[in-house]
């Protein structure tokens, strides 16, 4: 595309990396699996499909709004993008989150129970069980995205910061791109269920691979941090 500079490519790289790391987080996927579990037992398949579509829409909308808000706020405060000093603080937080992910993301070794307070995870589980309408499924999607914020907000801030530096015509595309990558695992889960896998198959897969996923997420956070150090802080 005409007008794309090496700086733009670095910004794209940052957005892609942040989106990939965000996609590895497990709460949204777990909540969707709960929704499938609850819905397949009570509703016809068509209804379940509608609920799942609305759930994914709710998740995507919150991500789009948060990334857009981050970009807007950064631009309003700084008139350009974040300074190297602020980026250094964000890098520190990324390293810290990587360590937290490795040691505290999952509660136990034998299940995929997450770091969430029990009351919050029970609330999300109950909401998933009681979801009957498309609006409720949409809200559940937004709720699970919101609950993941302690880990995802930093990724969305970094993505928002990179989006500001892109040409105007690419900014909206980048926001949509970020959101699409982040919700891709939800589509993969949906496709997997449509192909005939059961919630048990998927949950067993999650339990079997959770250590690997945890390590990859931590590495993802670290890689993003190093990328920012290399290309945004030291690279100027």
């Amino acid at each position, binding site marked *: 595309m005409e007008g794309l500079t090496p700086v733009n490519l670095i910004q794209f790289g940052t957005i892609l990396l942040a989106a990939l790391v965000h996609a590895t987080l497990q709460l949204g996927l777990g909540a969707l699996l709960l929704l499938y579990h609850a819905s397949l037992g009570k509703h016809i398949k068509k209804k379940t499909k509608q609920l799942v579509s609305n759930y994914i829409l709710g998740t995507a909308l919150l991500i789009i709004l948060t990334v857009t808000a981050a970009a807007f706020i950064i631009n309003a405060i700084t008139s350009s993008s974040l300074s190297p000093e602020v980026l250094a603080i964000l890098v520190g937080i990324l390293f810290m989150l990587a360590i937290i992910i490795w040691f505290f993301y999952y509660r136990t070794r034998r299940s*995929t129970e997450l770091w969430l307070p029990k009351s919050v995870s029970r609330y999300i589980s109950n909401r998933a069980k009681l979801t009957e309408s498309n609006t409720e499924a949409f809200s559940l999607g937004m709720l699970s995205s919101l609950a993941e914020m302690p880990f995802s907000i930093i990724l969305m801030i970094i993505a928002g910061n990179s989006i500001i530096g892109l040409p105007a015509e690419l900014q909206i595309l980048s926001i949509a791109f970020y959101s699409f990558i982040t919700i891709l695992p939800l589509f993969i889960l949906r496709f997997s269920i449509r192909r005939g896998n*059961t919630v048990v198959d998927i949950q067993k897969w999650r339990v079997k691979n959770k250590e690997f996923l945890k390590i990859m997420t931590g590495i993802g956070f670290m890689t993003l941090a190093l990328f920012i150090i290399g290309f945004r802080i030291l690279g100027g």
Partner: protein
Amino acid sequence: MSISKLSKKKLHDEIIREAKVLNIHSGTSELIADKVVEKIMKWREGRSMITAEDLNEKLATELEKYNKDLAYLFKSKDKII
């Protein structure tokens, strides 16, 4: 969380509902539910109070004899997130 009253019908319906999640044939799930509920009610006798975890674990143990996936659903309740 403890359960003081265990409803036979509620338990039966729950097993049927979970079986539906796994696309188990309705006739098969009725048979499984009848047998398992009977075992659970016998186990429940003499116990003044049971916890939800105890119940799910016992259900998983009994269901394992008929359908491993159905047992897994009860074993992994409240452990997905």
